């Protein structure tokens, strides 16, 4: 009974995670702790598994349908993985309160920026950043919702790289996939289409999470009785989600994304001010 309920929650987490590019931890952790009374360590362990399952499960369809920009993802993985190591390192050195507040405000800023975006399904062609040209980052994808091939350029590579480094630090500090930052870096800073941003965020997240998952596993935080059903449910959900997302309007995805972004932002600021303790 217990496993079946976890499986159902995990399917939902996989769908939401793959559509929004978030990895599903945002649902798995609170659901396990609040609904099933699982300890926070085991919930975080299961959520790391859910991030990897969302990433790999959705990437199969997103890459096949050419939504994911592999070059953008692989290039930015340098920033997130170095960031993750930095995060794990400074986590033991300084109180991360100030970082939480800074990153929280950054998320508020990008939520406001996203609200201002109007012409969503029509991608504006930004001028190509010189580094983007050298790295061959530009691409195009077929949008099933509006049945059009959408070509796009990539702007502000350095800004995006810097935010990705920040996303990596957050991952290292908190052991999460930090998908909201990854989507923000690509959508707000580098001006990639939203669908390309969420698909590429999902793609990258598996690598970031894999780096910390080993640590959690050998520390004993990954309970097979919980993480097993979570992995299966999320894999199934992510496979479904990767199909649903392509038929959704970018505007709809954005409308779902903004409240989640604000929720994560407020939670971080709250934590940073010190109420979380």
């Amino acid at each position, binding site marked *: 009974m217990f496993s079946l309920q976890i499986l159902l929650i995990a399917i939902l987490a996989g769908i939401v995670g793959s559509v929004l590019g978030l990895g599903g931890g945002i649902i798995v952790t609170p659901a396990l702790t609040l609904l099933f009374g699982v300890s926070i360590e085991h919930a975080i362990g299961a959520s790391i598994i859910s991030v990897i399952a969302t990433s790999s499960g959705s990437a199969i369809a997103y890459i096949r349908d050419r939504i994911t920009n592999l070059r953008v993802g692989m290039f930015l993985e340098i920033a997130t993985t170095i960031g993750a190591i930095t995060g794990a390192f400074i986590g033991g050195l300084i109180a991360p309160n100030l970082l939480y507040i800074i990153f929280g405000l950054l998320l508020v800023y990008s939520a406001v920026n996203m609200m201002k975006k109007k012409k969503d399904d029509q991608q504006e062609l930004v001028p190509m950043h010189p580094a983007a040209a050298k790295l061959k980052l530009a691409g195009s994808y077929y949008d099933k919702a509006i049945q059009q091939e959408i070509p796009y350029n990539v702007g502000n590579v350095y800004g995006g790289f810097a935010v990705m480094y920040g996303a990596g630090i957050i991952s290292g500090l908190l052991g999460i996939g930090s998908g909201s930052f990854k989507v923000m870096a690509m959508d707000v800073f580098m001006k990639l289409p939203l669908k390309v941003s969420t698909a590429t965020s999902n793609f990258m997240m598996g690598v970031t999470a894999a780096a910390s998952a080993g640590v959690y596993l050998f*520390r004993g935080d990954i309970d097979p009785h919980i993480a097993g059903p979570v992995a299966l449910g999320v894999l199934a959900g992510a496979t479904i989600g990767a199909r649903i997302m392509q038929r959704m309007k970018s505007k709809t995805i954005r409308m779902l994304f903004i409240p989640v972004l604000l929720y994560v932002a407020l939670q971080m600021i709250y934590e940073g001010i010190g109420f979380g303790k």
Partner: protein
Amino acid sequence: MNENTEIQDVELAVSRWLRIGVIISAAVIVIGLILLFITGDSGYPGSFYPHTLSDILHGAVQLRPYAVITIGLILLILTPVLRVAISIWVFMREGDKLYVMITSIVLIILIISFVLGKA
């Protein structure tokens, strides 16, 4: 080499290997869960489960359900790492030196983080 066909080759290889990794790890987890429900026994006393590599491997050979599920989870965790390694190889075959370098850097950082995590 045409840039477009190059990235398509990489896409094909990455997506194929991700699928193989996902199917194998899901199958192993399913087998573990079925064993758990049929026998009604996790293979370990109480709520204990194995979390050292040797315990996990020994348990899996003896088909203890918790150890089999954990093997599936380890395979799932290794899938993205395998994906990075595969893409280095494909970029190398395509002669794209810049991206061989980029993906190699990512793999090296990943390995460093595994080593740091163990310490």
